[in-house]
């Protein structure tokens, strides 16, 4: 179930993985039970992989994966399958970037683990060490249709820590994890100076600090590679993480809203060969050629996030403009320091259908497009045979605010059956 088992981790990363294997062995998910044999029948099934299917059926097998998709006239629902029905069936939603599980609803230190301000560069902070699977907001995004969640440390630090991919289920992080270390969350912008009381105090200083740390990590990795087994320099968790970033084993998730910060991010990518994803990117529509040439995707800010501060020039059309320019793009529920403590991915797609997206396009944006950017499209993001049995059932057009999410299924198991 875990990307660990399939990934090609190198060096230190492999030993970290070993620790997690143990962790998962102790706390990990039980194998999918026979109860995972579920059939979903909808008046309209949007597979996102092809045209919508009127009166469609999706069968999910005992392994939690989709075993058949098609019109009810062609698919026999086997005896013993639990049947869930609804008006509109879609893949479960894929949230491009969130802090849910680390940033809880209370807004007091007790449940705010999304950012640590003792040092502006802390890539070694692991998301799964701070994730509370029982947090109310994990349930909140789940009942509103999210089945895959890219979550972790918040924007605001030069490097705030790592992100990971989970399914919003289970009572421990081990049950939730899909990919334990996905990206390193970086931020370039004046908000860093604010949060870290002037250390760094300017954007240029921030970029210089990031460059210096990455250069140290290059030197650390070179020393390690050159040293014999018994003469290696002492292990340094920060530099080790940065070495993974430089290797491309971790991706750089760079929050940059304004033109100068986006250009600085692209410059860092070029200098260090980072595997980069732009995050937030409010003014990305002003740099279409640069971003397209860099060949990197954009996890755009939530359209309804406040258009103020670094986001003052955000628009409801940016997703469409990026997509039309051939830049891979998705949206996110993002990070909010106050209310709403998390945005709802489904609701954030609303402004897009008012300004240029069709329902199908908006749905693709928050399912398969996000899955591709997270490199999980072989598992989630569309209803296709062999993919995870992650499904949302709606009582109408999913993009309408008056439509409710009436069931959510993750890995073939119904995890919400009330209308929200």
């Amino acid at each position, binding site marked *: 179930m875990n990307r660990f088992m399939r990934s090609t981790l190198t060096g230190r990363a492999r030993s970290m993985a070993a620790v997690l294997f143990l962790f998962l062995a102790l706390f990990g998910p039980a194998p999918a039970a026979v109860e995972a044999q579920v059939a979903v029948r909808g008046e309209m099934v949007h597979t996102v992989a092809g045209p919508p299917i009127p009166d469609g059926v999706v069968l999910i097998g005992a392994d939690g994966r989709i075993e058949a998709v098609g019109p009810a006239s062609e698919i026999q629902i086997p005896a013993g399958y639990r049947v869930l029905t609804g008006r509109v069936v879609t893949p479960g939603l894929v949230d491009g970037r969130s802090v849910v599980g680390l940033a809880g609803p*209370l*807004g007091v230190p007790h449940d705010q683990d999304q950012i640590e301000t003792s040092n502006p560069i802390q890539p070694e902070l692991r998301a799964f060490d701070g994730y509370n699977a029982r947090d109310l*907001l994990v349930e909140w995004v789940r009942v509103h249709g999210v089945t895959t969640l890219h979550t972790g440390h918040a924007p605001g630090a030069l490097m705030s820590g790592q992100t990971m991919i989970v399914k919003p289920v289970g009572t421990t992080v081990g049950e939730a994890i899909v990919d334990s270390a996905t990206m390193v969350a970086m931020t370039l912008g004046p908000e860093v100076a604010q949060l870290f009381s002037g250390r760094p105090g300017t954007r240029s200083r921030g970029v210089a600090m990031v460059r210096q740390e990455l250069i140290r990590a290059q030197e650390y990795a070179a020393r390690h590679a050159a040293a014999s087994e018994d003469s290696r320099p002492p292990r340094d968790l920060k530099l080790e993480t940065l070495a993974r970033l430089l290797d491309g084993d971790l991706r750089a998730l760079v929050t940059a809203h304004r033109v100068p910060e986006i250009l600085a991010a692209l410059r860092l990518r070029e200098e260090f060969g980072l595997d980069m994803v732009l995050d937030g990117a409010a003014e990305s529509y002003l740099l279409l050629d640069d971003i397209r040439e860099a060949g990197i995707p954009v996890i755009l800010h939530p359209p309804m996030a406040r258009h103020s501060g670094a986001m003052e020039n955000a*628009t409801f059309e940016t997703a469409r403009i990026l997509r039309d320019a051939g830049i891979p793009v998705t949206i996110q529920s993002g990070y909010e320091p106050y*209310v*709403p403590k*998390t945005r709802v991915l489904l609701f954030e797609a609303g402004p897009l259908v*008012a300004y240029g997206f069709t329902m199908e396009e908006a749905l693709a944006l928050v399912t398969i497009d996000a899955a591709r950017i997270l490199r999980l499209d072989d598992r989630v993001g569309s209803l296709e045979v062999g993919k995870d049995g992650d499904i949302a059932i709606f009582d109408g057009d999913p993009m309408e605010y*008056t439509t409710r999410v009436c069931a959510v299924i993750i890995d073939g198991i119904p995890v919400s059956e009330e209308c929200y």
Partner: protein
Amino acid sequence: MELARALPIPVSLSRGGLSTRACASPVACALAVSAFLASSFLPGSPLAAGALEAQERPHAFVGARILPVTGAEIPSGTLIAQGGRITAVGASDEIALPPDAVVHSVEGKVLMPGLVDSHSHIGGGDGGDASGAIHGEVRILDALNPLDDRLRTARAGGLTTVNIMPGSGHLMSGQTAYVKLRYGRRIEDMLICTDPLGEICGGMKMANGTNPMGNPTFPQTRARAAAVVRARFQAALEYREKVAAAGDDASRLPPRDLQLEALAQILDGTRMVHFHTHRHDDILTAIRLSEEFGFRVVLHHVSDGWLAADAIAEAGVGSSIILVDSPGGKLEAMNADYRTGAALERAGAQVGFHTDDGISDSRFFLRQAAVAVRAGMSREAALRAMTIENARMMDLGDRVGSLEVGKDADFIVLSGDPLSAYTRVEESWIEGIRVFDLDDPIDRAYAVGGYGLIPISERIGLNREGGR
């Protein structure tokens, strides 16, 4: 108000050659702005002169689905506005168009009252400072900026009447301002009252719960907060008695106290209290205070309203609520629930929605109604909560909040149903003057974002005093 109505308004401008709904990007829209301004907004433009004439002629909006809010929906209706008021509204086949009418075809559109927001922080104003917890004498109208960009995003959201409030960091942070979102250079151009020196121009903002707690001039407990408020209202009672006892004898009047004067207006019932309150017990405390001193109150936010719906209904007080996309953000809003609107409606209590802009953006105000319906509120109550109920909470129910003959010609033109995510606000009209037009490239940048890229001189414009 009369000033704004009399100014030359190029009403028909944006129906000219330039349509920007299809412009490729905000930048392209911004570039289009210069050409638009150059061709249309030059001083002395013949269009501007024609607009003045247009203001005096009746304007007929023909063919829309009309939602009057206080009456039944009209599938194909006509609304006629003249002299800033609605002179006719009804089924198109029952309304004769005046021969001199300027006819606007709005077929396929939805026309409804301009939205009324009972709680907003647009306009860049402020209220009381850290010198104390009670600032009844402070007026937000002394700090509002009529050129604030967020007044314009609010027009883009279909808002036409707004209660602009100081914040919730005080027990009483100051006097609120009831405004129409007319274009103007002075706040007087926007106020609904005509004489801010002699009239009551808004309500009074109060708050309880954790926001007004602090050190050292602020209370640290809820009971202390209530005691401080009670002591001030007691002082106001005594002040009012002295004023009454003085009668016509000016020499017997107490020294004029601006704060007690404003509190006396509250006791007289001429100034509404707008009371920020979240938690169940705080809601009940606000009601208790209003009953002890007999003041009129609207509860605001009311996060735990679903837990206190019957008590609120029994007290007969209104609730101006906000539906936030997830619970919490602070402890006292932990139990906030989408179903509060439905619960209050079922209990028979008065419900309005507000933006609390910038907590939620005014451009998403209509969304509040849709989310409330999602959580069980009736469509009818949700539409009233965007319009007439908020107007009543500001004692403006006889002027705005519904489409009725004699009321102000404040309305919006929508591309579709007000509760649909696919719907865009296309035009906002105040007193017969168009203040927002999605076809205008500058207005469009305010609707979709990116207006900061347009030079300020062009954003403000040369002939924008009275709208368009």
